[in-house]
């Protein structure tokens, strides 16, 4: 009973545990299975778009190598969370220090979002990879292999994960719906594919939220997307453009508190709204506003204060809208 009460996120619940369960990226999976057979592997680099199975493949490989308590032999790091190469170095060092006694003579470090590291940090990483190679193998995961410096690439066996095909995504979603006893409609699943752009993780997240609304229909899918993206951004734009500056500013503050959006997040969403057909303004105004949003974005990048900059932007919009 308890097991039925606690619900997981489907992305995790239906993540293939073993390489055998993986249904996509067949060639890569076959190659990885060979590593398991040999109980040996080089450093690996998994590159490809988000939601194509890179992390899943890395975890499944570890699972198949070490068995059920694979977690003991794997250190997961995320380059965008673990700031600084020194943190990575010290964690890796500590992890690599203890020798393992099992059949597999090395441990694995999975370094996700490795392409977010600066070139300098990657140079340092390269040395770490060399230093501990006896005891530790790295699996680097990146969206773009080109952002990984050559010396690292040349030390890794590279695997290119390809974008999932529409049929693959839809059939996986349908399979999950079957497991969950959720009624789904084909056009609803296709809508999810379109919105997620082939990113299976994103697709499964949307699927779960749509299922929480009842059936997976086109209407529910779009309801999820609408609710997930704060509609307040458009309201703020409209308020400002109709000259109601103070109301726009108050709304902006509320938004930043509730959603915890950063200044740049807000600017990006505004920019998206700016070119949607729902915003009825002259075309030349769109361009002028885009220019000013870009200018404000740059000021924030230069270290200016999010709220002051956005407030100044709203003041300018209020003026432009009036004209």
């Amino acid at each position, binding site marked *: *009973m308890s097991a039925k009460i606690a619900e997981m996120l489907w992305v995790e619940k239906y993540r293939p545990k073993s390489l055998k369960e993986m249904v996509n990226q067949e060639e890569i999976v076959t190659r990885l299975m060979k590593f398991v057979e040999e109980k040996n592997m080089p450093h690996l680099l998994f590159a490809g778009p988000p939601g194509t199975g890179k992390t899943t493949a890395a975890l499944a490989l570890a699972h198949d190598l070490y068995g059920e308590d694979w977690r003991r032999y794997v250190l997961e790091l995320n380059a965008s969370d673990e700031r600084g190469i020194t943190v990575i170095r010290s964690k890796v060092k500590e992890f690599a220090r203890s020798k393992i006694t099992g059949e597999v003579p090395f441990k694995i470090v999975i370094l996700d979002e490795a392409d977010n590291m600066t070139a300098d940090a990657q140079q340092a990483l390269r040395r770490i990879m060399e230093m501990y190679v006896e005891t530790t193998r790295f699996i680097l995961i990146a969206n773009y292999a080109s952002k990984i410096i050559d010396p690292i690439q040349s030390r890794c066996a590279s695997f290119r994960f390809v974008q999932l095909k529409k049929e693959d995504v839809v059939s996986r979603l349908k399979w999950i719906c079957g497991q969950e006893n959720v009624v789904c409609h084909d056009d609803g699943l296709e809508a999810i594919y379109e919105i997620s752009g082939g990113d299976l993780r994103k697709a499964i997240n949307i699927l779960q939220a749509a299922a*929480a609304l009842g059936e997976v229909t086109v209407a529910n899918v779009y309801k999820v997307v609408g609710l997930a993206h704060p509609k307040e951004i458009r309201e703020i734009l409209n308020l400002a453009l109709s000259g109601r500056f103070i109301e726009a500013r108050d709304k902006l*503050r509320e938004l930043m508190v509730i959603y915890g959006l950063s200044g740049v997040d807000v600017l990006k969403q505004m920019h998206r709204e700016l070119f949607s057909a729902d915003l009825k303004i002259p075309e030349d105004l769109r361009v002028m506003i885009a220019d000013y949003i870009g200018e404000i974005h740059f000021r924030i990048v230069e*270290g200016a204060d999010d709220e002051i*900059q956005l407030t*100044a932007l709203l*003041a300018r919009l209020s*003026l432009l809208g009036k004209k």
Partner: protein
Amino acid sequence: MSQERDRIPWVIKYRPKKLDDVVNQEEAKEKVLEWFKKWPNVQKKALLLYGPPGCGKTSLVEAIANEFGYELLEMNASDFRRKEDIERIAVRSSTIQSLFGSEKKKIILLDEVDGIATKEDAGALDAIKHLVEVTKTPIIMTANNPWDQKLRPLRELAEFIQFRKLEKRDLIKLLLRICSAEKLKCDEKALEYIVERAEGDARAAINDLQAVGEGFGEVSLERAKALLRPRDKERDPFETLRAIFSASYAWQAKNALNQSQLDYEQLRLWLEENIPLQYTNLGDVARAYEFLSKADTYLGRIVRSGDWDLLTYSIDLMTAGIAVAAKNNPKDKFRWTKYNFPQRISLMSKLKEVREVREDLAKIISQNLHISTSAAKSDVIPILRVIFLTNPDYAARIAIGLGLSEKMIELLAGSNKTNVMSYYKKYKEIMEKEAKRELGSVTHGEGDKHKKSKPKPEDKKEKRDLLSFSKKS
């Protein structure tokens, strides 16, 4: 003997001893007395009296202690205000009272709390907060500048009561009284000069009077002018804003910041809040914000480059820039405006908590789904919000599955929080009962199990136990 007495500074010698001696603060006096008489049956256990120097804040507290027969436990800016010092006074105030019931009752006076140095008096503010929370003794604090960032944590704990600047005629009366007590012949013009200079500060006026008059037997305008040069006064935030907005010349606006209680960091927040209140024309408002935005950009560049030479440009823009921005409606510059305290500062503490909850939530998700915390925030939290807003039953089960705290549920569910929580509690109860029952069946039902001993139910049982165990921990 008489010489001895004369060495006492007049500000102490002529300090108000009775409530009636405290002049021109009727409103504040009434509020303080009401609070004091009701204590401990008051909303907030502490007061913070604020107002310009020398307007009678400390004197009022002393007069109250005097008239009602209380002992005053006082700490002021010259005392050490480290955490231990404040804790000591707290201990003194409460323990002595309970050990010797007949002891005089006490008032704690923390004078000039805005003078606490955040670095040197480390932890002092936290100690004060704690003291207010547990006190069995009335606590009264004083401060000149209630807008000081440091005092923010006290806003919720203490009632803030404003004291006004003293009027000129009150000060003249006070000086005349001292003159007659000291047997000084005094020139009215000289007293006016002193009072003018003091700008409502009784302490400053009495000190000046003593400087000009003591030992000479008279107070003359000539000597007053020779001895006393005009004083620089600090402007409070409202005066600062008024001075900047109304400046006709760039230098006036720049001076306004030099003489302000605000520093440039604070000024930019006050301007952010108040530009659209002073200026009404949208063109002027946009122009002013553009200058503020650029001033702020310079501050960012200073942090990036470490080059403090850039500060001057930032200050130019946020003072003179704001002053010259009212091109379309220059009359607005002089419009009387009721300024707002920066909302951002009051939102900040709230924001901080929300931010921390969100960070913790992102961390849970990131570990669960093997993604970065920023991906958790931008991709997963919005999706969870949809579920928590629309399907409280399902949301509660996810909350249990992920091990979310009540605060996290609140963050995700917003107005739907109570619905989600009621399911959450219901499920928690069921799970606890399950866990208990299974615990019972393991110990008592041992025999039963062996009868049916097939591996399958065994397996199930084990899984369940594991689950309920991990939920509890």
